[in-house]
């Protein structure tokens, strides 16, 4: 090709145009509209019925449009929310709640005690804590339009705790019309009495969910604390934007197109910290707890020595560092109930203080009679922390002589296969990795996985009579001090029979634009009341 004066001039003009383009086409700023908060949550809302499912995103939706009788505060204490006066009778067998003034459904009708009775019954049919409570309840009734009465068969110390909890399904109140729906069927109509109204017209399932401020909501006068206290809404609209690609969400946050990203990947934290317009905040003080579930129904984990071997083999630090990198975001924890709660304990945690100890783990495995049979480990490849934890666990267990066979699949595949009780070579499993929020893990009743009721219980089906007796004792404990003592015994026993193993506790920060302030911390759900946008 010949170089001519014309081609040189042409190239010069083109180059100048490219370099000058930023000045000609000025940079655009795209802040989302004032009064509208756009939030990218960790997933999609799978259904609008937060009772029908335990999926967290359904609870997030419920938290916007529905209210609760009680709400848990930052001291992990239940506080009245829709309820005004309330109390337990002297014989501790009748609990009475009176609805506070001014509660209205979004269709304009009054919230009545009948609505709440029906809501309580439907919730209790689907929730582990609710079922536990209902076994001790003789009757729930509406004494008059505003008074709900729960009659108990025996004293039960967790009534308000169960109604206040943020672990799913949350005890949301609905109209009697919806609450009378079969608990196994989804509700279709969304009428709540919460601080936001669901804007169905502008919602696009799978894409965006729109919530407008409820002008008729009357918040409590107390300051907000977790999901308790006054739910004062300062913005006109909140939009949950479903963005499956978290890198896109981060880019959108940096460009000001969204205001909040719930779960930025840890490897983006340095870049976000360096951005003057973005703040990182730890909003879930109890974080999450990583669980390693062992299948009690089949060898080798039907033998306690094999389970103890896993307990001694797991190095929580290695697991946590691999995914959460920075010590600010994780902590190894040997407590059976979540660290950082009143129930944190160091009873029987020699395995944690001295461990990991591979020699001891290998010895325990030999004592279990393990002969090198394949051990099936389900690996959810589409969830980073789970896939990392499975990889590391496989190495740890191979190092003590276990013949680990990893079965990679997506999380949906894991949740299907974990329900299979057949032996691993017939479609079952030996180990899977999961996690639970720190609040539900802190309570032996709230987390279904804490039960040791055998095949009636949660996947892994641990069984231990003493554990069940202690869980029952824990519920009946009259005060915190007694409950802590029971917790101590519960933990001593748990780390002997090993219902499951933990791989640590972590908190992932949220990222938000600095012009959006007033965020309330809470485990389990994300409150959007009290949030202001400048």
């Amino acid at each position: 090709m010949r170089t001519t004066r014309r081609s040189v001039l042409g190239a010069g003009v083109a180059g100048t145009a490219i370099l000058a383009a930023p000045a000609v086409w000025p940079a655009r700023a795209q802040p989302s509209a004032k009064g509208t908060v756009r939030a990218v949550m960790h997933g999609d809302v799978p259904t609008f019925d937060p009772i029908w499912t335990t999926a967290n995103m359904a609870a997030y939706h419920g938290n916007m449009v529905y209210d609760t009788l009680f709400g848990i505060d930052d001291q992990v204490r239940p506080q009245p929310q829709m309820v005004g006066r309330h109390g337990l009778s002297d014989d501790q067998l009748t609990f009475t709640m009176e609805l506070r003034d001014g509660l209205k459904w979004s269709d304009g009708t009054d919230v009545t005690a009948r609505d709440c009775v029906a809501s309580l019954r439907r919730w209790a049919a689907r929730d582990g804590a609710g079922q536990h409570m209902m076994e001790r309840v003789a009757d729930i009734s509406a004494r008059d339009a505003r008074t709900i009465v729960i009659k108990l068969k025996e004293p039960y110390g967790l009534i308000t705790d169960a109604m206040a909890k943020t672990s799913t399904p949350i005890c949301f109140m609905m109209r009697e019309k919806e609450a009378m729906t079969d608990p196994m069927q989804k509700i279709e109509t969304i009428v709540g009495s919460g601080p936001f109204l669901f804007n169905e017209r502008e919602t696009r399932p799978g894409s965006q969910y729109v919530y407008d401020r409820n002008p008729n909501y009357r918040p409590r006068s107390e300051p907000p604390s977790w999901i308790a206290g006054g739910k004062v809404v300062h913005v006109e609209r909140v939009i949950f934007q479903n963005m499956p690609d978290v890198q896109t969400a981060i880019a959108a946050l940096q460009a000001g197109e969204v205001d909040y990203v719930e779960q930025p990947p840890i490897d983006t934290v340095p870049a976000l910290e360096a951005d003057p317009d973005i703040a990182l905040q730890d909003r879930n003080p109890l974080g999450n707890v990583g669980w390693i579930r062992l299948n009690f129904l089949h060898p080798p984990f039907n033998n306690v020595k094999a389970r103890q071997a896993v307990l001694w083999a797991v190095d929580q630090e290695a697991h946590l560092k691999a995914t959460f990198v920075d010590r600010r975001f994780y902590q190894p924890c040997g407590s059976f109930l979540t660290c950082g709660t009143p129930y944190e304990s160091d009873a029987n945690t020699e395995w944690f203080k001295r461990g990991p100890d591979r020699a001891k783990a290998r010895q325990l495995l030999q004592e279990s009679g393990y002969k090198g049979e394949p051990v099936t480990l389900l690996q959810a490849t589409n969830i980073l922390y789970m896939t990392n934890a499975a990889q590391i666990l496989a190495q740890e267990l191979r190092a003590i002589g276990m013949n680990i066979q990893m079965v990679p699949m997506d999380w949906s595949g894991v949740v299907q296969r974990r329900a299979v009780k057949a032996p691993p070579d017939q479609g079952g499993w030996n180990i899977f990795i999961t996690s639970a929020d720190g609040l539900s893990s802190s309570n032996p009743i709230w987390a279904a996985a804490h039960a040791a009721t055998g095949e009636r219980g949660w996947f892994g089906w641990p069984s231990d009579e003493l554990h069940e007796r202690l869980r029952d004792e824990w519920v009946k404990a009259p005060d915190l001090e007694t409950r802590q003592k029971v917790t101590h015994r519960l933990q001593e026993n748990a780390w002997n029979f090993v219902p499951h193993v933990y791989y640590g506790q972590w908190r992932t920060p949220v990222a938000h634009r600095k012009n959006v302030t007033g965020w309330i911390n809470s485990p389990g759900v994300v409150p959007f009341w009290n949030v202001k946008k400048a």
Partner: protein
Amino acid sequence: MIAYIIRRLLATIPVMLLVAVIVFLLVHLAPGDPASVIAGDNATSDQIAAIRATLGLDRPLWEQFAIWIWRVLQGDLGQSLFWNRGVAELILQRAEPTVSLAITTLIFAVSIAIGLGVLAAWKAGSGIDRSVMGLAVAGFSVPVFVVGYLLVYLFAIELRWLPVQGYRPIAQGFWPWLERLILPSVALGLAYLALIARITRTTMLEILSEDYIRTAQAKGVATRPMLFRHALKNAAVPIVTVVGIGVALLISGVVITETVFNIPGIGRLVVDAITRRDYPIIQGVMLVFSAIYVLVNLAVDLSYTLFDPRVRY
């Protein structure tokens, strides 16, 4: 011609039935359970079983297939397992972004690719030819999501010329609609552009060596009419064929592009459905995509009559 169109349309029925059977089996035999996803992590086996029964997923596979195919034959694609909305309604709701993205990508890719292909053929062996072919190789080799992230970084985050993500309906204004489609169209269109540019160049090289082109040149026909009126029209049949075949490339690319650029189109709908095993949506979208592909190929076949008068149906 009309008889040919009717024959071709009738021939699509067994194809669509085969697609329906394959899609249904693939979706249902793959591991995963929508009931488990719906029930959430705290649910017990009994709760999951109850949801499965509610959704009819506990019925034998043949029965589920019979129910679904009977509804499809009546024009009903079924209900989403998660949203209690009709699959057809959800697809229609998501159609505009996908159709918009497909149109802008087609315009971007075809208009540039044909020009580049003709230029490369005209300047065969030159630096221009090598540059165009280098661009084509790069466009074909680099995955859509890599191009997408690079474009976002440069044009949305660094320069802030264009938005990172999202979609605005055209009813809200032409520019807001277009500005959100520029980066996705470029990211999605590069591979398509490369494919069309290469086939255009190859076909044009063949045509340009024909005697009638040499005669036209000898008679003093100017370059532009010679290239575009005489040569390109005769090269159109293979190019249009590749444009049609490329629709499959476009469909698969739409799925990734809509995810990277957060465009709430049919591609995103099906990705989300696959993640949570929303069988009716997966099956419905696959059927619709298959139908589109069959119809595009029919349109391509019919278009041959426009470019080559010798072709008759």
